[in-house]
């Protein structure tokens, strides 16, 4: 089995196990500069099989795969994308608001804020500028990374941050981490921990997919 297909199958299983998927989730990985492997539109991740992962060229991708194709086209730093519909992300996407830095892990892994893009590719590309994740109005979220593990971890952390953000509406106002400290954490995470982990993960994703170390483990706070 192709290693990208194997990785997508493995991470689809993990996302389902973590309960952070909806009905129309899609995962993809860049295979070569202009090609990607992507899960077929309409196939639930819980039911995903090897045959449901197709290879296509990012310039000739059909319309339902355009979001992924266009992101790979615009962002050479991105090699994996999770388009997911986690339960707690949904109300934030519906409200169309920005999640501020309310948890250390969010500041480190997702970034100091996570904005909501309109449901069109121009808005998504614009919102993703300088970032790896965004929410999509009335839909869910798009997370990305240099590896699938990075994109996957962002989904988990974003769902948790969303859960905190939504709950804060009834328990009190959000206490936001100071912008400088949030950016500092993100910087340290990206340089000190993430780089080393990415090297290990890229090597692993090329080979077997068993027992991968989560990117989350890198910062371990």
């Amino acid at each position, binding site marked *: 089995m192709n290693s990208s297909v194997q990785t997508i199958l493995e991470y689809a299983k993990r996302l389902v196990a973590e309960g952070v998927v909806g009905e129309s989730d899609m995962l993809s990985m860049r295979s070569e500069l202009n090609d990607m492997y992507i899960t077929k539109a309409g196939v639930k991740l819980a039911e995903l099989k090897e045959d449901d992962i197709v290879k296509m060229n990012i310039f000739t991708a059909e319309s339902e795969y355009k979001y992924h194709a266009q992101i790979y086209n615009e962002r050479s730093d991105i090699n994996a994308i999770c388009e997911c519909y986690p*339960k707690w992300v*949904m*109300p*934030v996407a*519906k*409200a*169309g*608001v920005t999640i501020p*830095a*309310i*948890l*250390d*892990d969010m500041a480190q892994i997702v970034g100091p804020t996570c904005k909501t893009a309109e449901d069109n590719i121009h808005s998504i590309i614009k919102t993703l500028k300088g970032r790896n994740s965004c929410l999509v109005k009335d839909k869910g979220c798009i997370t990305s990374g240099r590896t699938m593990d990075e994109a996957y971890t962002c989904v*988990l952390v974003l769902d*948790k941050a969303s*859960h*905190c*953000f*939504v*709950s*804060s*509406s*009834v*328990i*009190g*106002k*959000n*206490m936001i*981490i100071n912008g400088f*400290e949030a950016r*500092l*954490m993100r910087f340290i995470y990206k340089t000190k921990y993430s780089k080393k982990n990415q090297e290990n993960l890229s090597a692993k994703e090329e080979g077997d997919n068993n*027992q991968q*170390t*989560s990117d*989350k*483990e*890198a*910062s*371990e*706070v």
Partner: protein
Amino acid sequence: MAWDKETELRLRQVIKDSGVALLAENLVQGTWGNTAVRLDEDHMLVTPTGLDYIALAPEDMPVVQISDPSVWSDGKKPTSERKIHAAIMQARPEINATIHSHPIYCSILASARIELPVMSDEMQKLVGGSCRVGAYGLPGTKKLKNGTVEAMQGRNACFMANHGVFCAGKDMDEAFEIIRIMEKSCYQYIQECTLKATGQSTYSDELLFDYFVAQKSAKK
């Protein structure tokens, strides 16, 4: 060393089992939590940094000096949060086991920096009163460590602002009872706040969703 080999072997297993139990009870995500258990006045065993709890062996747990947590031996590289575990062990001689994690409902109160009032007799008994929030500090800093020690005074649990929860017990079983009651009490608090805000009598996540969306829409 003021402990015997038999005790050390038993406590190594206790630490190993604590990591597995945190995972099994959904009180930790990945390896993103850590535990410690006291060996003697100046030494403790802690979980190693960033490794899978299931794959870890009891002998992987490092021994860390409580008075100077930069000193460690006999295992894999210890958790970067060991300074906080050490500070609590040093300040509180009656504490022999500590847990730091980020379970979801505790994280919600930690992110809003809300002191959790006593929610039940069980919470009063185990935590020793309300659960305070320690001052915010970046991970690994003295500010975070000192804030945690201060918020733990006279209590067996505290929130770490925008981060998670810290629990301490006379042994690991008690520390687990404390983190369990904390997560349960936080959930109860959120449910009660939701019912109060919405005027409804039965809690559901959807009720909270709708309230959130309506509030945000009203602000626009």
